[in-house]
């Protein structure tokens, strides 16, 4: 059957199982938009291509399936760059389709020409400029295969206009021609046995779970392993929800703004079992001072992560789904043969760190509204039964810290890239992928204003996300660093709380707009917001502008230098630094 390249593209996406894509048409991609009219794929017309990219990410985070975004050449394509970079840093499987100027004009500085494969080379898992119409089905099939398998990531397919207009003979499925593409096979059984032995013998083990646990859907095995080994579990920013926060073995988030117990357990442990995590600088602090007494077992699907930052004692390359299943089996055998691990003292130590040095903030009934309080109320009112999305900054850290996650794929944020403006469009994508579920974006006022235009898309497309703006009138995290490290010399961080009027803005976008200024009103306003399901809802929470995020390990410092924050006395801080347990 003869089809155009554009028809081949849309059919390939349909055959690939795509149910939704996010994009904006333009000159070079125009041919593709004609068959999109009659396609079974729902196209969501966003207001800015960055929104399309983050929406594709949000969809992928929430569903585990590949997200798709589409844009035209030149500025359309370059507007995707931030989202592609974000997906690359957080290993999010998305496929970006871009139009390109006709092949004969490539290199001539034609109208809306940009070298998008060149630009995105360092921030994609793979990309391709398709120069033959017959290759379109294979290029699309390969893009999805590469995005979704191994360590997931973004793939970009650039399609010149003349290629989209040319004729080809349709056939599916195409043969994949990827001789150099390697996905790790089964993990080495001997290494797994070695790991199980180390874990059983360890007196002070910590399971350091990263985003890989969620991406491989292996959270059930993680829990089994933790309970078998009686090992506390810390979940990184990428892994929040991979292990229930209410579990007695849960230490919470590690790192720069991690829980004292998680940070300190890693410093004091004799064995780290790193599972789909990458010893990121935000977790390790000063690398040379990180976990000085620990042996390291590192399991990851990406061989290049092994030894990149911390040299492991046991390196296991493989898909965590298999690795963890095998690990659980090996651990059982190890326990059957040699008895249960002896970690009772360690667990009671880490548990007492949790009670001695918890998250602490002070919400006075008549005082300024604390962001932590809003998060805790949201957590209580939803019971963890929501998809929570955050951008980057104080609101993100407060949410990660204070929301009690109960299940995987209930937390979406911009981790590695730290992309402000991520939350609203990512929530839109998550809502599209999981219709009928409660999707709540928590956003800072700085972040929100970077991509707020997608509220229009949400309203028109009937994607009833909730957006809770923590409006403190500042670029809060930058303000906090200027307060702490630049002697309160605030420079260009004040946004003001009044402009724009977020309630009016919400209404202008066809959303419901609410405001909450007093601690006593939080529950009522949240309940109201959660009850609106026909339109998106924006809540302007006027939060305390001087509230910081604590604990905090100053950048470049050892995790031993963790600062508990102003809610702790000097004596408590001293005791914490000495790792003492305060009996209450």
């Amino acid at each position, binding site marked *: 059957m003869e089809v155009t390249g554009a028809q081949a593209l849309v059919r390939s996406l349909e055959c690939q199982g795509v149910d939704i894509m996010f994009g904006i048409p333009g000159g070079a991609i125009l041919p593709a938009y004609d068959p999109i009219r009659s396609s079974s794929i729902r196209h969501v017309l966003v207001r800015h291509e960055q929104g399309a990219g983050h929406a594709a990410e949000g969809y992928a985070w929430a569903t585990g399936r590949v997200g798709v975004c589409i844009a035209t050449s030149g500025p359309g394509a370059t507007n995707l760059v931030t989202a592609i970079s974000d997906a690359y840093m957080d290993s999010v499987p998305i496929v970006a389709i871009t139009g390109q100027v006709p092949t004969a004009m490539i290199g001539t500085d034609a109208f809306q020409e940009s070298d998008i494969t060149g630009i995105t080379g360092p921030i994609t898992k793979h990309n391709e400029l398709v120069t033959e119409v017959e290759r379109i089905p294979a290029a699309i099939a390969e893009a999805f295969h590469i995005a979704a398998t191994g360590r997931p990531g973004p793939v970009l397919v650039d399609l010149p206009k003349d290629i989209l207009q040319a004729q080809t003979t349709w056939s599916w499925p195409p043969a994949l021609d990827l001789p*150099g593409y390697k996905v790790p096979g089964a993990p080495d059984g001997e290494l797994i046995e070695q790991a199980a032995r180390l874990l059983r013998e360890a007196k002070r083990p910590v399971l350091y779970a990263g985003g890989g646990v969620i991406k491989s859907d292996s959270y059930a095995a993680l829990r089994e392993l933790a309970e078998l080994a009686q090992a506390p579990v810390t979940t990184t920013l990428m892994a929040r929800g991979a292990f229930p926060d209410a579990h007695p073995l849960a230490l919470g988030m590690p790192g720069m703004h991690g829980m004292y117990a998680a940070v300190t357990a890693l410093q004091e442990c004799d064995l780290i079992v790193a599972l789909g995590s990458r010893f990121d600088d935000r977790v390790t602090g000063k690398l040379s001072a990180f976990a000085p007494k620990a042996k390291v077992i590192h399991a990851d699907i990406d061989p*290049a992560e092994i030894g990149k930052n911390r040299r492991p004692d046991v390196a296991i390359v493989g898909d965590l789904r298999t690795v963890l299943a095998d690990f659980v089996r090996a651990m059982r055998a190890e326990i059957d043969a040699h008895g249960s691990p002896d970690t009772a003292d360690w667990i009671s130590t880490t548990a007492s760190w949790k009670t001695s040095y918890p998250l602490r903030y002070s919400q006075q009934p008549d005082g300024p509204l604390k962001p932590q309080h809003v998060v805790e109320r949201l957590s209580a009112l939803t019971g963890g039964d929501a998809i929570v999305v955050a951008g980057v900054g104080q609101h993100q850290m407060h949410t990660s810290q204070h929301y009690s996650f109960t299940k995987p794929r209930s937390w979406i944020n911009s981790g590695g890239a730290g992309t402000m403006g991520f939350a609203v469009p990512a929530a839109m994508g998550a809502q599209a992928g999981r219709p009928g579920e409660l999707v709540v974006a928590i956003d800072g006022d700085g972040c929100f204003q970077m991509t707020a235009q997608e509220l229009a898309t949400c309203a028109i497309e009937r994607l009833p996300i909730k957006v809770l703006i923590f409006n403190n009138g500042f670029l809060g995290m930058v303000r906090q660093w200027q307060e702490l490290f630049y002697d309160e010399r605030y420079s260009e961080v004040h946004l003001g709380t009044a402009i724009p009027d977020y309630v009016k803005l919400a209404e202008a976008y066809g959303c419901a707009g609410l405001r909450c200024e007093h601690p006593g009103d939080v529950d009522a306003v949240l309940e109201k917001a959660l009850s609106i399901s026909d339109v998106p809802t924006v809540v302007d929470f006027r939060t305390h502008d001087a509230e910081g995020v604590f604990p905090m390990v100053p950048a470049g410092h050892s995790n031993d230098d963790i600062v508990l924050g102003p809610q702790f006395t000097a004596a408590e801080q001293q005791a914490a630094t000495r790792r003492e347990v305060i009996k209450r």
Partner: protein
Amino acid sequence: MTTHTLSVLVENKPGVLAHVAALFSRRAFNISSLSVGPTSDPKVSRMTILVDGASTPVDQVHKQLEKLVRVLKVTELEQDAAIERELALIKVRVNPQLRSELLDIAASFRANVVDLGQDTIVLEAVCGPGRLDELLARLEQHGTCELVRTGQIAISRGSETITDDMAGPTLAAVS
């Protein structure tokens, strides 16, 4: 010696060199030389990359290269177990009194005279690592006026080949 030699087989497709170059830039890898050429299989090109091990983690270069979709195989060649060569074309000014001395130097490095001009000659030299620098140092006093080097290429000694442990279909056409 901290220089490491990587032999890399890549698919002979557009954009591959750009992906490899982008990787070096993205990961802040320092390379001292890169040479690319075709192989006996028209679908495969071979790169020889010299990495400065003092400033760059060679293991990471190896693993990150492996991750590139169009890269088929990466092997590190051990210095003792490999033959390493670089070709240079060197244009030298000739002073009639020193012509025979110049030709003696060339002969001792087995460099061929490939162009004989009025007052310049062009030498073609093929040397192992370090040898070429020695030759250039010797020629410097005669006044080297132009130099071009190919970058080093290398192949393992003995019966082993780079494609030994590659699955058949990797290099052959996938049906």
